[in-house]
C-alpha cells in the first residue's frame, strides 16, 4: 500500500518484545512490519469485547526500531524510563492488580479518586506546604480546573474563592501569592482563571480592573514583553499571562504615561511588540524558549502560541511571527514511543504535564493550518520593517510559491525575500492530526494515574501525584479526546460537546456592539469529540473540553468576557 495513513499503529495482539538489537531480532521486526503493511484499513476493535487478551499495538510494547550502543547519561535514563513505562503500557496487571483495564489494555480513568484528591488540595493544607506559600493561587486554579474537566460542579467553592482572592489582591493592582505579597502575573493569571471557573458577577467583581490595568502598564517593557512582577524577570510566561488577563477582563489596551514602555506614540498599546517578543523566542530547533537565546521548551511553546492566538486569528498570527514548519517538526518530536507521552525538550524524558504544554499546542497549530486564508493585510514583508520571519522562515514557507517543509532552507540558501513571492502554495491543512492521540491517551491513562487510594495524576510512573500534574495531564487528555475548529468570523455559539454542561451563566452570547479591537476573539471554537482514530478509552472516561487558549471551559471564557463587555470597555478609566 502506498500510504499507511495516520493510523499505522495497527492493532495487533500483544506479543513479547524481542531482545534488543540482535541482528535476528531486527529481521524479525522487519517481517512483522511487512505483515502490518498489508493491513489496509484500520480495524475497529472497540466492539470486540469477547477478546480475552488486550489489543495493544506493538508500538507501545517495544523499544523503537532504531537503537544505538553509545551510552550516555541521557540515553541511560531514557531507556530506563521507556522500560518502566512499558510495564504500565503492556496491558498486564502484574503491577497494579486492582486496576481494571478495557479490551485495549487501558485502565479506566479513576475519576472518583482524582476528584477526592483535588477536593483535598483545596482544603486545609499541612505545614509542609509552606514552600507553596507564594503559589497558593496556582493550587486554586489547578484543582478547580481539574475538577471542572472531571465534570464536577465547582460553584460550591465560589464563596471560599471570593474571600481567598480578596485576601490576595493588592490595592495597587493584581494578585500576589498570598496576603501582602507582591502582585505577580502568574498568580494573577491563576486567580483570574479560578474566578472565571466558579463564575458569577460576585466572583468577577472581586477584581479591581482599574488597578489591574495600571499595574499591567507598570510591567509592560519597551521591548514588548512583560515583567512577571515589579522588578521581576521578563519572560514569555509574563506575556501569555498578561494577554489572557487583558482579554478576559476586557481591559483597555491604552498605554499609560507611567508605563516603562510609554514613548508618546499614540498607536502603541499594551499588545505592541508582544508578537515580536514571541518571535525572538523561537530557536533554531523550531521550538520556543522562555527568553530569547535559550533552549526550546514545551511550556513556553504553549505560552507563545497562546499569545499569538490572542493577538490575532492563529492562521494569520502564527505564520507571521513563527517558522511554522520548524515549529511543527519540533512539537511533533516531543512525542516518544513506546511511552506515548510528550517530553518538554529534545532528549529529555516524557512528563505528563507536557500533555498540556505540548499537546495543547496542536489545536492552535491546527487552527493555524486549517484556518481560512490569511488576509492580505498580514502579508509578510509588507513594509513593517523586520517584523516576523521575512526573508527566510515560516511566513515564507507559509506563503511562498514552494511551500513545503523544505522551503525555509532552499529559499534562504538563495536569499530570496518572501515579499516578492506569489502565493502559489501554502502549508497544507492538518486534517488527520499532527500527533498520535492514541499514544498520548495510553500514556495518560496507563502511566499518569496514581492508582492507589491517594488518586491524582502524575509526571510518570514512580512519581507522586500533585495538583499541577492533575490539571495539566487532564488538560492534555481533554485535548486528545476532542478536536477543535476555529471559525474565522464571530457567530453565535454552537452546541459544545455533550459533556459540556449548560447553565444560564455560561451560555450568554457576546454583545453585538462589541467594540473590542480583538474581534477574532469572538470567533467560536467548535469542539467535537474526536472520532476518527481508534478509540481506546471508554465513553465514561471522557473529560470536558477546555478553551484551547484560556485553558478553562469555553462557556466560562464567554461568560466573563460578556460580563465585562456589558459593563462597557473603558468604563474603568
Amino acid at each position, binding site marked *: 500500500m502506498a500510504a499507511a495513513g495516520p493510523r499505522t499503529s495497527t492493532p495487533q495482539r500483544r506479543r513479547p518484545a524481542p531482545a534488543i538489537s540482535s541482528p535476528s531480532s531486527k529481521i524479525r521486526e522487519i517481517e512483522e512490519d511487512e505483515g502490518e503493511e498489508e493491513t489496509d484499513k484500520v480495524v475497529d476493535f472497540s466492539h470486540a469485547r469477547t477478546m480475552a487478551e488486550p489489543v495493544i499495538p506493538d508500538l507501545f510494547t517495544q523499544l523503537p526500531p532504531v537503537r544505538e550502543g553509545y551510552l550516555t547519561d541521557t540515553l541511560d535514563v531514557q531507556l530506563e524510563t521507556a522500560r518502566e513505562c512499558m510495564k504500565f503500557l503492556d496491558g498486564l496487571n502484574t503491577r497494579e492488580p486492582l486496576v481494571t483495564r478495557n479490551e485495549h489494555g487501558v485502565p479506566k480513568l479513576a475519576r472518583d479518586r482524582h476528584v477526592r484528591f483535588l477536593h483535598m488540595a483545596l482544603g486545609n493544607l499541612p505545614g509542609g506546604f509552606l514552600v507553596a506559600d507564594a503559589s497558593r493561587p496556582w493550587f486554586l486554579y489547578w484543582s478547580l480546573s481539574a475538577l471542572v474537566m472531571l465534570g464536577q460542579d465547582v460553584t460550591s467553592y465560589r464563596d471560599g474563592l471570593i474571600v481567598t482572592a480578596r485576601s490576595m489582591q493588592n490595592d495597587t493592582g493584581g494578585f500576589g501569592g498570598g496576603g501582602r505579597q507582591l502582585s505577580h502575573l502568574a498568580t494573577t493569571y491563576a486567580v483570574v482563571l479560578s474566578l472565571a471557573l466558579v463564575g458569577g458577577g460576585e466572583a468577577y467583581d472581586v477584581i479591581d480592573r482599574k488597578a489591574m490595568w495600571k499595574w499591567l502598564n507598570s510591567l509592560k517593557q519597551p521591548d514588548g514583553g512583560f515583567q512577571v512582577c515589579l522588578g521581576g524577570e521578563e519572560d514569555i510566561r509574563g506575556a501569555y499571562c498578561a494577554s489572557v488577563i487583558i482579554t478576559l477582563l476586557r481591559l483597555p489596551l491604552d498605554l499609560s504615561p507611567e508605563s516603562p514602555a510609554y514613548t508618546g506614540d499614540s498607536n502603541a498599546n499594551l499588545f505592541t511588540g508582544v508578537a515580536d517578543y514571541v518571535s525572538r523566542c523561537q530557536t533554531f530547533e523550531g521550538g520556543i524558549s522562555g527568553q530569547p537565546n535559550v533552549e526550546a521548551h514545551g511550556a513556553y511553546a504553549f505560552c507563545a502560541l497562546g499569545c499569538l492566538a490572542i493577538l490575532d486569528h492563529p492562521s494569520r498570527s502564527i505564520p507571521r511571527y513563527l517558522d511554522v514548519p520548524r515549529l511543527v517538526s519540533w512539537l511533533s518530536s516531543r512525542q516518544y514511543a513506546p511511552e506515548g507521552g510528550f517530553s518538554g525538550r*529534545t532528549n529529555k524524558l516524557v512528563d505528563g504535564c507536557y500533555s498540556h504544554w505540548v499537546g495543547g499546542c496542536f489545536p492552535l497549530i491546527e487552527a493555524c493550518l486549517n484556518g481560512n486564508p490569511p488576509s492580505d493585510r498580514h502579508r509578510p514583508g509588507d513594509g513593517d520593517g523586520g517584523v516576523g520571519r521575512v526573508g527566510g522562515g515560516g511566513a515564507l514557507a507559509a506563503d511562498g510559491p514552494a511551500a513545503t517543509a523544505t522551503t525555509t532552507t532552499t529559499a534562504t540558501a538563495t536569499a530570496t525575500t518572501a515579499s516578492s513571492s506569489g502565493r502559489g502554495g501554502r502549508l497544507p491543512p492538518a486534517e488527520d492530526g499532527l500527533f498520535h492521540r492514541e499514544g498520548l491517551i495510553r500514556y495518560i491513562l496507563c502511566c499518569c494515574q496514581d492508582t492507589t487510594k491517594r488518586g491524582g495524576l502524575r509526571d510518570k510512573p514512580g512519581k507522586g501525584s500533585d495538583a499541577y500534574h492533575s490539571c495539566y495531564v487532564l488538560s492534555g487528555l481533554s485535548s486528545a479526546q476532542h478536536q477543535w475548529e476555529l471559525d474565522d468570523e464571530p457567530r453565535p455559539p454552537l452546541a459544545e460537546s455533550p459533556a459540556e454542561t449548560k447553565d444560564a451563566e455560561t451560555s450568554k452570547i457576546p454583545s453585538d456592539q462589541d467594540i473590542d479591537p480583538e474581534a477574532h476573539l469572538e470567533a467560536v471554537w467548535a469542539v467535537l469529540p474526536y472520532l476518527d482514530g481508534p478509540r481506546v478509552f471508554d465513553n465514561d472516561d471522557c473529560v470536558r473540553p477546555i478553551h484551547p487558549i484560556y485553558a478553562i471551559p469555553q462557556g466560562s471564557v464567554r461568560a466573563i468576557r460578556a460580563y465585562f463587555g456589558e459593563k462597557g470597555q473603558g468604563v474603568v478609566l
Partner: protein
Amino acid sequence: MAAELKKELYGGGVGGEDGKLSTDPEWADVEPVVLQEPEGALAAIAYPDDYAEAMAYLRAVMQAKEHSPRCLRLTEHIIEMNPAHYTVWLYRAANVFALNLPILDEITWLNEVALQNLKNYQIWHHRHLLVENYHPLIASDPAAISAFAASERAFIAQMLSEDTKNYHVWSYRSYVVSKLGLFDDADELAAIEGLIDKDVRNNSAWSHRFFLVFSNPAYATPGAAATAYDAGVPAEVVDREIEYVTGKIRLAPQNQSGWNYLRGVMVKGGRKLASVEGFVSEFVIRLGEERSEGGKEGEGEEGEGEDVLSTHALDLLAEIYAEKGEKEKADLSLRRLGQKWDRIRVGYWEWRRKCLEVGA
C-alpha cells in the same frame, strides 16, 4: 570585610535564645503584622509557628520600607524555609542595593543557597539583578570582567555537575555571555565542548553552543531569526560547525540534538541541504528495498533489506530529496518513517507528504 561585620549580614540569624523574634531585643521595636486567613479560605496552609512569625515581621519591615542588616538576615531566615518566596527575594535585593553591600559577598552567599535549591527559580533572577548592578563597576576593566566571568563559569559548572540540563542555569549562562561579552571567550566554548563530550545528547549544551556561535555580535546580523539565513556568519565558521557536529553525529546517529544542530547550521549558513547528502546517506541503507527471499538473516548479508541507523537522517534526507526536486524519493522517505521507523509521529510524516504535494 571584617568577620564580625559579615555576621551582621550573613549567617547571623534572627531570634532570641529560644529562636523567636518576639524575644529578640533587636526586634523589640517592631510590631509584627499578623495576617489572619479569612474564614473559609481555600488551600489555607497551616504555617509552622517560626515561619508565620518571621513573615509577620517581614510584613512590618517591608511596610516601613526599612533596609538594614537585620532585614537582610530576616530574608535569609525566610529563604532558608521557603526559597520560592519571590517577594522576599526582591526585598532582599532592595536591601543589598540600599545598603550598598559588596555584590561579590552576596554572590558568594547565593552560591550556597543555589546549590541547596537546584530547581529554584528566584535565585537566578536575584543573581541577574546583582550582575546588572555589578557590571557597571567593572565594565571598563577587562581583567575584572575576565575574572568575574571565570568565577561565574566555575559556579555554573558546579551547578551543572549536579543537574546538567537545569533550565535556569542555562538561561542564566546565556545572559552572562551577553552581558559580559563572552562570545569569543575560548574558555566558554571549551566548557561547552566538555559538556557535549560528557554527554553528546545534552541538548542544553548544544543550544548554548548555537547561541554562542550564531549570535556572536562580531558578525551576526542583529535581530536575525534563529531559523533564518544570516549572511553575516563567515563561511569558515559554518564549515567548522558542520565539521564539529558531523563528528558528534557519527558517535550517536540517533541523537536528535546533533541533527537539529546540523540543520540549524546549514540554514544559518545558507547552505543547500544537499551539500551534506553524502554524509546523511551513510545512515540510511537500501531505502525502500525489501529483503530478498534468498537473503539470509544476519548482519551485512547480501539481500538484506532497508536499514535505518537514524530516523533524523531519514527526515533530513527527505528534505534533501525535496530540495533537489526528487519528490518520489522524498515521499518514500517520509512514508517509511511513518510506516516503520518512527511510527509515533505518523501524523506528522503524513502531513509532510502533503507538504510535498502542495509544494511541487
